[in-house]
């Protein structure tokens, strides 16, 4: 596909990245080149192939399936807030939402 600065802008919104004009200009040809490169996968006939989503081995698949639903101790409010940039009254404070 053809990749333009316009596409980059739309992606930046989706990715929550505020890119500068300079960053947008630099990224557009780079991403276009990488996408052109990965499109070589279109040479491969995958019409009858299942995607490899999920555990990579039967052993991994089995293990990932279950754990008893038991309450375990967790970090707790004080520890969880220790690294927060702006904690307040036991919460994470953020700028206004709307």
């Amino acid at each position, binding site marked *: 596909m053809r990749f333009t600065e316009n596409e980059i802008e739309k992606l930046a919104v989706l990715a929550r990245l505020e890119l500068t004009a300079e*960053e947008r200009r630099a990224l557009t040809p780079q991403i276009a080149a990488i996408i052109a490169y990965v499109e070589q996968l279109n040479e491969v006939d995958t019409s009858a192939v299942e995607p490899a989503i999920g555990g990579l081995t039967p052993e991994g698949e089995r293990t990932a399936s279950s754990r008893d639903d038991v309450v375990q101790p967790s970090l707790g409010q004080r520890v969880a807030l220790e690294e927060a940039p702006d904690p307040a009254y036991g919460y994470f404070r953020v700028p206004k939402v709307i």
Partner: protein
Amino acid sequence: MVPYGIESIRERIFSRASSVQQVANHALEAAESLNETLNAFLEIDRQGASSCAEQLDRVLDQKAGDVRLPLFGVPIAIKDNICVRGMQTSCGSRILGDYHPPYDATAVERLRAAGAVLIGKTNCDEFAMGSSNENSAFGPVRNPWDTERVPGGSSGGSAAAVAARIVPVALGSDTGGSVRQPAALCGVVGLKPTYGRVSRYGLVAFGSSLDQIGIFGLSARDVARVLGVIAGRDAHDATSAAVPVPDYVEELKGELKGMRLGVPRALFGEGLDDEVRRSVESAIGVYRELGAEIVEVELPHAKYSIACYYIIATAEASSNLARYDGVRYGFRAEEADDLIDMYCRTRDQGFGPEVKRRIMLGTFVLSSGYYDAYYRKAQQVRTLIKEDFRRAFERCDAIVTPTSPTPAFLLGEKTGDPLTMYLSDIYTCIVNLAGVPGISVPCGLSSIGLPIGMQLIGRHWDEALLLKLTHAYENARPFTALPRVVAN
């Protein structure tokens, strides 16, 4: 002078030739004095390491605990994307800065329980994204063999720390080659275990279907010992499998007679440096002399691995890195108009260029209208790659390839073109796509004295065989050259 290997360190400690404190001090001093040259450490924890060493010395003096612990008194360095309580975890990124995790990764907890002394956190490409370490927000690591060259990436700090004999072993992480490629470029052994072999609890997520904690060391024996400590099921990581963990050190023994080694000839063609090819070919000759049978195998979809990898890894990264939003931990940008604006500014100021590039790519391949054409397609090709390995392993017990197409390149040589940099992972990322284990083993020096690595790839869960093959090679062709920073 304190010896380098785990066995000799333990012997020294148990014979009381050195205290644990002295061994730790030696590592701390080496880390500090070489950091100006190598920039391998982002944090050196003198206080934490000393108090841990002191405690172990007390155990030794009073015979008050289990002194036969497998890593008793062994200094170890940890890549800065693996959580260690009491130290920072920056992932080489400004967005985490001096974040201090409130818990230990499971692998770290197991190292501590085995008596290890953790001396610090090693530099890496930002969020483990890179093949040269030049994407660290805190400056690149330099290669101990030639400080004008890259150590490889993304676990370049851990590779350099082991190569420079600061620590005998170090942990890294490997999503597309981030342990094996720097191991090759720094002349050390680097193992990426099977997907699910080592718990990733406390490893900062990059590509969750690919990530695995790996081990650097100077010998198969040392890597085997550490793997035995950190491997195995952990309730905190649902992808860690309940597969029995063998005694890897015990399994090093034995002959190679009757073993079959597969060589995928197609991977020895275009783009491979001549000296690397010759070195790996000659290593294959050594295995033949040791009694292994060499068979040709094919991996027909190998040529698609980079394309497949960069779709899957970036898709998973864009999702995993959504958590860095300036709310709960790490950096937050000032002067935002509202919440969304705060997210966008924080992420723009906090992430470096390569991370942004990958988040953008990953967002694209997952976005509505393109998901099937890119992401689903890549996952289908991944199935074919897994199938290639299944077939190849019907004909052989392990596969030999180069680890990296070239020895260490110059700092700045590939930074201009991201795609050229991605091609450094051509032999390694296929292993993560298949979920099988791989190890890089030093197998020679180039004409200008740079280390060359070969890669051995095994069946799922068969790290024991890879370590045995590495051990046999080390005995037949000991790699004794020293990097410049040590030799001087």
